[in-house]
């Protein structure tokens, strides 16, 4: 059983993508940082385990736990029913507020205004899936491999709209003051959860208990606010 293995090894291996700010990234001295990184560190500390980050890319987050190369994933996994067929999700430890952000000067009030405007997204993210499923709205989606490319596309003028987290929307204007972006239409709020291999019920229970405790004591909210600038939603904190 995985929990026993972890306890025995005194070490937990966590699969985290360190190239998706602000959840996983490097600080100016090239140490891992970000909201997911701090969640992982908190977990390891609470359980008295050594922490090992398994460096992954978006494509290998899941195979890493499926093949036993990592124990769990903390890497902005949004919960969808489709994905739940492959791995198990814990209860949510955070949420991700996503908006459609556009050039400030752009007159966008509602969905019809977006017609024929290219919307940049990170490929395969839940924002992408959500927008892609809005078939009736005739949206034009430009998919980039990661957030950085998506931001660069917005900064350089390849797209005037993006579908991503509010934090990233604000970042565009910082990079290029001539192109200030702001949130125009709220897209959705996704639950973020820890992922693990199917059938590890004991580990799952223990993770869920840990999440419940740290939601209650406000530690997870503190981490979230530190990196995303806002509190977790009220319904989660109560």
């Amino acid at each position, binding site marked *: 059983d995985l929990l026993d293995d972890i306890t025995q090894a005194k070490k937990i291996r966590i699969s985290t993508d360190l190239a998706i700010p602000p959840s996983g990234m490097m600080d100016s001295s090239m140490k891992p940082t970000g909201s997911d990184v701090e969640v992982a560190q908190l977990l390891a500390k609470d359980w008295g385990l050594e922490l090992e980050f398994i460096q992954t890319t978006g494509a290998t987050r899941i195979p890493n736990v499926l093949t036993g190369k990592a124990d769990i994933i903390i890497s902005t996994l949004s919960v969808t029913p489709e994905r739940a067929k*492959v791995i198990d999700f814990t209860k949510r430890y955070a949420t991700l507020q996503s908006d459609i952000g556009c050039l400030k000067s752009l007159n966008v009030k509602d969905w019809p205004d977006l017609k024929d405007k290219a919307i940049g997204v990170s490929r395969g993210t839940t924002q992408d899936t959500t927008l892609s499923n809005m078939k009736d709205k005739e949206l034009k989606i430009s998919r980039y491999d990661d957030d950085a490319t998506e931001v660069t596309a917005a900064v350089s003028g390849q797209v005037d709209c993006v579908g991503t987290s509010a934090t990233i929307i604000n970042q565009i204007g910082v990079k290029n003051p001539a192109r200030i972006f702001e949130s125009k239409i709220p897209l959705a709020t996704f639950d973020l959860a820890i992922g693990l291999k199917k059938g590890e019920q004991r580990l799952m229970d223990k993770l869920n208990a840990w999440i419940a405790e740290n939601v209650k004591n406000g530690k997870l909210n503190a981490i979230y606010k530190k990196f995303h600038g806002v509190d977790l939603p009220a319904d989660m904190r109560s």
Partner: protein
Amino acid sequence: MSLQLDFPAVLERWPSFLAGAVLTLELAAFATVLGALLGTLAAVGRGTHNSLIAGACKIYVETIRNTPLLVQIFLVYFGLASLGLKFSAFTVAVTALTINVGAYTAEIMRAGFEAIPRGQIEAAEGLALSRLQIYWHIILLPAVEKVYPALTSQFVLLMLASSVCSQISAEELTAVANYIQSDTYRAFETYIIVAVLYVILSLVMRAGFWGLGLVLFPRRRRLGTPL
């Protein structure tokens, strides 16, 4: 192991895979034709006595060959946008791939040119053929014939390398795979299917080149030498 593969769950998205494969083939086809032209010109340019042209061709070839395609694609895509020029992802992808494969083609073609025996060119000179006629009749076609396998491999390589176009929002095969695997979290199934599709695409390309070779090199066809 507990890993269970569920191909039907991924295969049901076959229209997306198909669209991705078609786009990959389109990118490869455009870049192959344009890159072959550009590369041949650059190879001829490197061989001219005009040191300005030769130098420019050399710088082009060396810069492109010694830097990653991904960086080239970024520079074209974002660079053009920063200059206020907006082109579709497809146009940019074809442009970047052409510039890239042109440099490799130039090197291969140059080797082919150098492989033409001196006596052949002297014989043609002795028949009063002009430089252009010699290039066309005596150098170009036999050189292409000699390096044809290398060219074929290079263009198949280009098709495989076109996967980085996913970075600039071209929805080719790898982009489709990335989307499907992060949507379903079935990375194994997706990558295995994609591997098979790429093998099929490369076989399609090789078959195409083989057929083209039969048309271009009648001697090979007559004498039964494998291409």
